[in-house]
């Protein structure tokens, strides 16, 4: 059971090595808007009194927040998995998985993991150097337990990201072109998960609305654990909600697959 998926991971990593130049380009290009964002906030803080805060954030905390979004993103973001899954369905490639004793979702999950490992192996160097260059602004977690809970939450985030993408890609059973849907959801994810700014600088009403969606658990939540903004019972409660969202996304992904496969026609397969 396990060895065959282990092979999938190994093959996935080998395939990805071919694109290491692409990964490096992506990591380096990705630093440009990050640097721009840091400059923007530094300019804003420069106009305020020394030690002033935005929301509850000092300048160092704000910069750390954006650096952490990049770290969590590198660890959990879905790269091209959703496109590939949709393409597999559209081109009839999934037919072979219906015949083999391989579960397609597990197979894709292994490839997703392989993709993250390969990406990190390339992106870790520029990213670490960048964070070290800003180390006087980078806050460390309060203690080891915080770091541990952060990592647990990051794992859940990765699963949530993957299952949502997988469920979205299932749309390919019904429509020819899924990229628009993926981009629409991505737009909401981008702003509501905290990519553009920490969510707790928003007006309280909006924050409460966002808390009802899975989006904050795709990025903001693990970072707020790291930064010590969520502790104690709230931390456990948050992790529980995050786990629930993972479970829901998993359920939707499985359900969409079983519905989709019923109307699957293996075009050109």
């Amino acid at each position: 059971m396990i060895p065959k998926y282990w092979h999938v991971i190994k093959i996935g990593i080998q395939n990805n090595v071919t694109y290491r130049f692409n990964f490096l380009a992506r990591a380096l290009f990705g630093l440009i808007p990050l640097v721009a964002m840091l400059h923007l906030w530094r300019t804003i803080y420069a106009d305020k009194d020394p030690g002033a805060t935005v929301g509850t954030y000092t300048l160092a905390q704000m910069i750390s927040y954006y650096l952490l979004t990049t770290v969590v993103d590198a660890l959990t973001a879905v790269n091209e998995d959703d496109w590939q899954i949709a393409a597999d369905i559209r081109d009839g490639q999934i037919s072979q998985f219906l015949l083999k004793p391989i579960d397609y979702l597990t197979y894709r999950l292994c490839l997703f993991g392989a993709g993250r490992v390969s990406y990190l192996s390339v992106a870790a160097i520029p990213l670490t150097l960048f964070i070290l260059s800003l180390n006087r602004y980078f806050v460390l977690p309060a203690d080891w337990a915080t770091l541990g809970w952060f990592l647990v939450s990051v794992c859940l985030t990765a699963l949530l990201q993957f299952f949502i993408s997988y469920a979205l890609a299932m749309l390919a059973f019904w429509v020819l072109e899924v990229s628009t849907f993926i981009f629409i959801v991505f737009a909401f994810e981008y702003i509501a998960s905290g990519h553009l700014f920490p969510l707790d600088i928003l007006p309280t009403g909006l924050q409460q609305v966002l808390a009802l969606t899975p989006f904050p658990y795709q990025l903001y939540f693990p970072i707020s654990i790291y930064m010590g903004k969520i502790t104690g019972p709230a931390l456990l409660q948050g992790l529980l909600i995050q786990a629930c969202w993972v479970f829901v996304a998993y359920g939707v992904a499985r359900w969409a697959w079983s519905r989709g496969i019923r109307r699957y026609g293996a075009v050109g397969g």
Partner: protein
Amino acid sequence: MNTSAQQEPGTVPIPPVPHSRQPVLKRYLGIYGALWKNSVTREMTFKANFLLWIIVELLWFGMQLSFIGVVYLHTDQIGTWTRWEVVFLIGASHFIQQVFQAFFLVNCTHLSDLVRLGKLDFLLLLPVNSRFIVSVRQVDLGAFVNAASAVGVMGYAAWQLNLVPTLGQVLGFLVLCFAGIVVHYSLMFLLASISFWTVKAQGIVFGYYNLFQIARMPDEAFGRGLFRAFFTFAVPMLLVSNVPVRLVVSKLSDPWPPLLLLAMSVACLVVSEWGWRVSLRRYTSASS
């Protein structure tokens, strides 16, 4: 595979058309008209998709605006840029980007496919300038709708600023926007030409989206450091939309920024033409 283009890279001459002695410009306008018709037909085949892409762009545009909305909840200005000036800037940046997208973006991103699949052969063999046909083959009509939404946002911001620009300012704005589009096109085309070296250049092409993000930020956010110098004099992203907006909202203290933008647009065009010619010389077609 031996194409005529390999002997004369980049400069496939326009042979005299035997049957009619049309002037060059008229002939190219004719070709471009046919390409437009082709694009309209293509878009209308997938109407729902056409509309969905417009929604996608509107959403992302709205997201950038809401980011600025949130930032200005916590500050009154970025450098000397006030809230509605920045909204105007984002509108202008979106306008420039969308017009660029309407005419060039798809074609630039397709270049790597053309190279990888060897389809470039057919375009090189056509009796027109190769760069022309590669650059303008498809028109993205939805982008015009989005450019219009950007004009709407600029108009609203101008109203909030009580801005009544002179005719000269409007004309200058349009000329500078044009220069900005030339910059975007040249740089993107240059990046796309890298696909002659590495087969999967799409990552690099999409990397350009990251540069768009800088173009819509107020230049004063970047202080006077290396970052600002690089994105002004090497990759002039901080000129593309900041300079036209500064002209309209009367934030220019001297005439140098507009002149610099015009000069940089010419420089980018020249460099990208050089890059294209060097790249074409490496083209060996695929699968044969």
